[in-house]
């Protein structure tokens, strides 16, 4: 196992998790034998091609899907987890509500959870400042660029102070330069917020650059091919991609995906 005996209890533990979608006539194996631990406060990249089950795994963690086999445990005595309120989600599209100003968009989860609004408002402003959107509180989404909208959606995912942030290809729709910038921003936000983040991507470089740990999933049939810690120093910069060690990690993933 990757967890040494004196390491803190894992925040998330998956053991042999599998999920089958039952279709007409044919069943589709979406996830099989996913087994890995996630330490509290780590950033785990789930990387793999389309159909490898990474989004399904994310939805299982979000409590949106059940699973057919294996065990999913989230939370530990030191880090209790309330599945009803400790999840924040970010998707490929920002999915901001067009009719709400940015601040009101960020407040949506707080409203749904019925949190005290004065405090939530305060927190939303602070989060917007953290993601670099101070001064944009009263703008409408259409007045913001795609990258800025995605920053707002990250602030929204954090407004109710969830312990677990689930991100499903959040930068997949952005142009390459914006994506690079958002990668660095996410690393900063992660370090400032101390959240446990599960980051789904099909970008191999992105997975290694961001992850403290990488889980490689392959398709046809879906299975977990590998998981390993990324032993690269923090804070990370884009130049890290030229590091030979970085290349070894990406090569390891490309090999598993049959791309070498």
């Amino acid at each position: 196992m990757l967890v040494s005996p004196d390491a803190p209890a894992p925040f998330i533990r998956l053991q042999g998790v599998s999920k089958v979608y039952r279709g007409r006539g044919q069943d589709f194996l979406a996830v099989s034998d996913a087994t890995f631990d996630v330490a509290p406060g780590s950033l785990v990249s789930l990387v793999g091609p389309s159909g490898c089950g990474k989004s399904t795994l994310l939805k299982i963690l979000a409590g949106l899907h059940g699973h057919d086999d294996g065990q999913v445990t989230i939370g530990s005595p030191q880090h209790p987890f309330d599945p009803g309120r400790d999840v924040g989600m970010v998707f490929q599209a920002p999915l901001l509500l067009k009719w709400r100003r940015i601040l009101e968009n960020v407040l949506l989860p707080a409203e749904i959870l019925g949190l005290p609004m004065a405090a939530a408002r305060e927190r939303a402003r602070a989060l917007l400042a953290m993601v670099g959107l101070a001064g944009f509180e009263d703008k409408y989404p259409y007045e913001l660029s795609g990258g800025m909208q995605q920053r707002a959606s990250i602030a929204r995912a954090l407004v109710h102070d969830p312990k677990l942030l689930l991100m499903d290809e959040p930068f997949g729709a952005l142009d390459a330069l914006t994506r690079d910038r958002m990668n660095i921003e996410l690393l900063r936000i992660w370090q400032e917020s101390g959240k446990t983040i599960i980051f789904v991507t099909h970008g191999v470089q992105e997975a290694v650059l961001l992850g403290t740990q990488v889980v490689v999933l392959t398709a046809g049939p879906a299975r977990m091919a590998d998981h390993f810690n990324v032993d690269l120093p923090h804070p990370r910069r884009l130049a890290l991609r030229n590091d030979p060690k970085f290349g070894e990690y990406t090569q390891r993933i490309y090999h598993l995906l049959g791309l070498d």
Partner: protein
Amino acid sequence: MKTDKGGEARRFGLAVLMHLLLVAAWHFFVVLGEVPSFVMPTPVDTVKALFAGDYRWGENLLTTAGEIFGGYALAVVIGIGSALIFSWSRLTEEVVMPLLVSLNMIPKVALGPLIIVWFSYGFLPNTVIAFSIAYFPIVLTTARGLREVEPELIDLVRSIRGSRWQIFTKIQFPGALPYIFSGMKVAAVLAVAGAIVGEFLGSERGLGYLMLQVQVTLDTAAMFMAVILITMIGVVLYGLVLALERAMVVRDARVS
């Protein structure tokens, strides 16, 4: 699409100017072309019709406006209401929707004589005709709008155990508003036509009724005035809907 205040004022001024030009063109066409007044009166003669004869303009105007606004209000309430039922009950939508799509193809005007058989003639059947013609665009666009919800937004709400009611009030209904208004704008135009057709078919009051009366005496100026007043009712209704849309829907989300 951004417009500054100056651009808006310029456009409004241009619109007013074009309307005045149309009236002027009308005037000179009649005067210079020596068009007989029973074919086409001048604008001035048309306004004079308001004070000539015993046409009870006020009463007729109120009757027609009442039919239009009444039928329209019914169409908005029942149209949005039935679309809500469809969105809450998939079964109802699957059963009723194909029927509505077919019923929508019936030219509602053709139902006029039937509706008069069912409701006698006068205010009520004309309101019903206005309703029946305005209902369909509202129910169809509202149902469409309520269906257009990003599944991932629902995932987001459900991941923190949000209720179906919260999804409806915070995401689904506000998201459907632009669609609802686009249906309401189409319906506003149709409701006017529906009420007038009803009055043509059978009634003893209203501007459409008045037009048939003065047609016999060839008082064309009064007919022109009636058409103008009917148009103005429509403009007021449409303007109210636009104002409501401006108040409720963020510009970028509007469906033009």
